[in-house]
């Protein structure tokens, strides 16, 4: 199993306990998770994430095979295409982008270009809906949640685009999914880190209506408790706990073979 939504590094707006790769490896072992896709949390708040990518590759290098780097590429930065090629060459399994933190509007052409370039290179583009609950944000944290329109625009950009959207809730997922054609929907995956379980059973609802193949395991560590998505799966109604309807994992997302 892959945890498709983890980070290392500190968060600027609150203290996060030991967000370090060796701790993440111990958490994976404790939670019986094989590997993690790992981003560099401070990079979301850097104007130029390049230095953060270097730090990410360096920090993860002792854990190759267990922690897979997901660097950030800012597509309105000069020579971003070379930066993308470089991180793929260095072993990136996916690429992160933070349109909200970088001040991109919904239809920013550079973001579309990045999604297309990632698709052509066979790596998914990972988008983060939110890092924290809207109700607790720092007064300087004004980025706002990822809009559904941004995801729809990227999903429509091209046939080879592959998107993984993390930390979304039911409303965003449904607004995107049912606002796309069947072909476009097949380009979008969602992690389950922020989908509610019982008594509203929103995860169960989404698995029934959209299908389990569009959802992957993700925790949001180190910002969120790693135990939450497993607890959510453990509390699914009986018919969804059947081996016939298992949750997929990030390995389903076509990467280099796209």
């Amino acid at each position: 199993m892959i945890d498709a939504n983890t980070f290392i590094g500190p968060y600027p707006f609150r203290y996060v306990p030991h967000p370090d790769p060796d701790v993440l490896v111990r958490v994976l072992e404790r939670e019986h998770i094989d590997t993690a896709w790992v981003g560099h949390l401070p990079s979301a708040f850097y104007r130029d994430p390049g230095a953060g990518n270097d730090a990410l590759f360096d920090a993860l290098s002792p854990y190759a095979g267990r922690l897979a780097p997901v660097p950030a590429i800012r597509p309105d930065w000069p020579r971003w295409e070379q930066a993308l090629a470089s991180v793929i060459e260095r072993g990136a399994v996916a690429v992160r982008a933070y349109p909200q933190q970088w001040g991109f509007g919904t239809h920013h052409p550079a973001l579309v270009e990045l999604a297309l370039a990632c698709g052509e290179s066979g790596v998914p583009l990972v988008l983060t809906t939110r890092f924290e609950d809207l109700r607790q944000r720092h007064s300087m944290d004004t980025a706002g949640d990822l809009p559904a329109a941004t995801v729809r625009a990227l999903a429509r950009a091209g046939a080879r685009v592959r998107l993984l959207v993390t930390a979304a809730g039911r409303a965003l997922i449904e607004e995107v999914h049912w606002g796309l054609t069947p072909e476009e929907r097949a380009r979008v995956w969602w992690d389950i880190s922020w989908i509610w379980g019982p008594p509203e059973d929103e995860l169960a609802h989404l698995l029934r209506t959209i299908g389990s193949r569009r959802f992957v395991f993700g925790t949001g560590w180190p910002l969120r408790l790693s135990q939450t998505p497993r607890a959510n799966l453990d509390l699914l109604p009986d018919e969804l706990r059947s081996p016939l309807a298992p949750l997929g994992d990030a390995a389903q997302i076509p990467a280099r073979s796209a």
Partner: protein
Amino acid sequence: MVEPAPRTAPLAGSEPLVDVHAHFLHARAGRRDWEVPNRARMRAGERIGITVHIASILGTWGHTSPVYFPSPRDVTLGNDEMLAIQDRDAQRVRAYVTVNPNDTAHALEEIARCAERGAIGVKLAASRRADDPLLDPIAAAAERRHFPILHHIWQHRTREWPGQEISDGADLGRLALRHPRVAFILAHIGGGGDYRHTFAAVAHIPNVYLDLSGSGVDRGMLDGAVRAVGARRLLWGSDITMETGLAKLRALEFVEPRLDAAGMSDVRWRNAARIFPAGTLPGVPAPDAQPAFAGHAR
């Protein structure tokens, strides 16, 4: 592929587990599917291993008056529905009486009426700020009956939000200091806002207990709660996201500072047994009992 865990023993172990913050719906709450989440709560509760759900209904959940400003008629309706659920499932459900302090006479009548019918605590939502003098007669009524008060809290209110007159830990702390013999349950530290503000605001007030419920599962939140008030003032609950409740139970095994078995028991059930009227929680031993259990989460 991610396979779910095999279904055997309760996921959170066989030691008693009290959910101090649960809710139910009813037929006049504006949702045709109102029975579905009620059943889902009991299904998930059974799987987790919840011994007793202590629950409230806030009027008609906004259908005929606002959720956090329920009319007297809706308050009574919601309480009647809650007591009916308790009557139907007496081995697993206990009721709070919900009141709106703006209608003081009605609130006091409801507390008396519902106590007579078996309610075991008072639920205050966000109809009036927690330190308002209108809450004093409510607190006095609770004290006479040895009822704890579960108070809806926004963890650090920095401004007004629509739909509720929000209170934070500092507001509730002022009320708690005026009523030192009443146990106040500060609702859902994971329910939105800055819980670290709450920890600082109430750490020194011994009759304020923190309920761990809410959708928020920030790492560091549980550690901070344990550090701020200790295991003796923490209560487990789920509110409207039971998966986060289960996750927090599991995470409590790894908080820093570590909780020993006695501390885990405090959080799971013993503190609840201490603050609710004696003998009112079915399946839960007296707080000073030393029962042998098969263990908790994992």
